[in-house]
């Protein structure tokens, strides 16, 4: 056991810190002050400036190969970067669904041509990818997908509707699951497709999230023809009919969304402690902050343990990612709830904590509700019987 960082990691940390400090300031200046939310049209454009800065500094996807704009960084370095990123006050990544959901799958299942084309443009924020999982009747029950992809000469014809597509109204491309075998049910007969949103017959309608931002979209497919070469290398990721296993293979992977970096919560708890110091003593709130601090710390330790295992023999977190997701999402809610209690009556006025509170409430819902995650944990980690 050795919980110290090596010289290489410390140098990496120092470089990241210097770059982030300088560039965050420069970006804010470029925006003429605090940028708007990345989930508004105006703010999204501002955040693209930031994404391009990250790409130019080769910080957009540090763990990727250099040829796609990364640094071939280790998972340790990725954790360090994330820690520094949130400590410096870096904004939420508007490219994250591409980088954290699609890219791991591309690395595992994509053809070289797909990888070469998609990854570099994704890191550069030239192509902006949104996810197309959920449908009006397929939320928690993702296998209930009914949007169809029909094979035709030279491509696919897509019909149906996706929804809850985060930042869909601002993106250029969608990745998602479509039913390619109309006779197959549930997890079978699905295909993972890459779809340019400017395809004829695709209509995107943005709509408001709880926090008021236009962060969601519905995407309608009305006999939309997607040519095989609409994405160089092909629009099918993995095999036809293999969509479910392709999509699921990387949900628990090291780069998956569920391994949300601890740095984000450590930084949030630090801000909470600062708010407390400014608000005057209250032993009850103090205890809640200690609770949040301990949970953020435990999350970091759990992650360090997981990364140790990942860099050793084991390949992926597997079902442990389910308790991971419950942990950080509930922690995030409690951090913000505590902050609002500190603010008192001022909590009902818009501000960063009120915004963060509203966003935190999506955590127990998205990427598989915490109810589903608890089912997974009980069935796969403890071996309890399905019904």
């Amino acid at each position, binding site marked *: 056991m050795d919980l110290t960082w090596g010289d290489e990691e410390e140098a990496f940390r120092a470089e990241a810190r210097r770059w982030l400090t300088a560039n965050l300031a420069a970006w804010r200046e470029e925006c003429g002050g605090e940028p708007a939310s990345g989930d508004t049209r105006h703010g999204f454009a501002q955040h693209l400036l930031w994404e391009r800065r990250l790409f130019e500094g080769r910080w957009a996807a540090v763990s990727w190969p250099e040829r796609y704009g990364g640094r071939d960084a280790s998972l340790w370095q990725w954790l360090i970067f994330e820690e520094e990123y949130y400590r410096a006050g870096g904004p939420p990544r508007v490219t994250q669904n591409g980088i954290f959901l699609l890219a791991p799958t591309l690395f595992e299942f994509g053809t070289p041509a797909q990888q070469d084309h998609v990854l570099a443009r994704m890191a550069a924020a030239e192509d902006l990818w949104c996810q197309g999982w959920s449908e009006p009747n397929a939320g928690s029950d993702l296998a209930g997908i009914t949007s169809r992809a029909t094979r035709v000469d030279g491509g696919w014809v897509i019909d149906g509707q996706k929804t809850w597509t985060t930042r869909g109204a601002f993106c250029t491309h969608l990745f998602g699951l479509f039913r390619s075998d109309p006779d197959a049910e549930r997890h079978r007969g699905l295909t993972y497709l890459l779809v340019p949103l400017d395809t004829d017959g695709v209509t995107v309608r943005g709509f*408001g999230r709880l926090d008021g931002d236009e962060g969601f979209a519905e995407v309608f497919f009305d006999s939309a023809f997607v040519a095989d070469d609409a994405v160089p290398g092909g629009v099918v990721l993995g095999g036809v009919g293999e969509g479910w296993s392709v999509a699921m293979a990387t949900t628990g992977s090291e780069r998956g969304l569920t391994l949300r970096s601890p740095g984000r919560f450590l930084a949030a708890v630090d801000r909470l402690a600062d708010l407390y110091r400014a608000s005057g003593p209250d032993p009850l709130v103090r205890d809640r902050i200690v609770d949040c601090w301990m949970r953020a710390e435990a999350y970091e330790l759990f992650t360090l343990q997981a990364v140790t295992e990942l860099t050793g023999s084991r390949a992926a977190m597997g079902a442990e990612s389910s308790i991971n997701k419950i942990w950080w999402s509930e922690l995030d809610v409690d951090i913000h709830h505590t902050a609002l209690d500190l603010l008192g009556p001022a909590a009902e006025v818009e501000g960063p904590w009120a915004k963060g509170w*509203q966003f935190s409430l999506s955590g127990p819902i998205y990427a598989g509700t915490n109810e589903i995650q608890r089912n997974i944990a009980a069935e796969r980690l403890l071996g309890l019987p399905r019904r």
Partner: protein
Amino acid sequence: MRFALTDEQLAFRDAVRDLLSKQCPPDVVRAAWGAPPGALQRGPWDALAEMGVLSAMSPEGSGGMGLDFCWMVAVLEETGRAALPHPVVETVAVLGPLRAPEGMTSAALGGTPAPCAFDADQLLVDHDRALRLYRREDVLLEELAAVDRARRLGVVKALNGDGEVVADDPAAIEAAFDRGALGTAAQLIGVGQAMLDLTVDYVKERRQFGVPVGSFQAVKHRLADAHKALAFARPAVLRAAWSVASSAPTTGRDVALAKAMASEAADHTGRACLQCHGAIGYTVEYDLHLFLKRAWALSRAWGDSRWHRRRVAAAIGI
């Protein structure tokens, strides 16, 4: 001993519920989100005025009905259930017993923001050791961006003149505050009930994995707990109404208990309801958020749960 509203009180409540179901559907609340300051629709307000609700607690001689809080507690719960954006607690319960309101009255006590500040005809302010009533035009307001935009908040920046002193006895000022807290507690029960009803309807219909999501034990238990929280907070609110009405020596304690429990019940209910809805609850196109944000606002208005719990602790001597 009889711990229940009378048939007359229930009939009054039912009449208000009926009125609000017609006059204040969610579209009216949405309209309040978008209307510019000072331009709040007066439809439901005027209807309530016509029914006598707005002066119900005011002395009979002054044109009011002289009703006590036992009459109003269920009525105010209904205004919460409808997420009525108008300052009904401030007008009816805070000012009402002191003096018949002249039009829509908001209040900004203890420096907190005033709801419907730019829409009100009068503002009640505690200033220079008295509760003072100002005409709207004598108050300089600054707009605040509330999370629940139907709150239409303004903060008092300056006052013109001395206003009309409506209370200067500290006990009367405290009693007015307690009425605000209690009326808000009643509204919170209604907001919570509205969220629960909406969610119960939704989870019965919404199907995933081939069954209604309301058949999952996790959903059942979470909503059963929400129901429980509301079912036990409601009598606490009702008892505080009796304490206020009968000037019981335990009034402060009872109001504090009521507001603390109602705030917590609404908060827990809101989170349960959002979670049981899933993504659709997380959109502004669906109605849930109108109630959810109201619950957040009201649970912190007129003293949050922590503040009222400290009052209870002091009252029971620990």
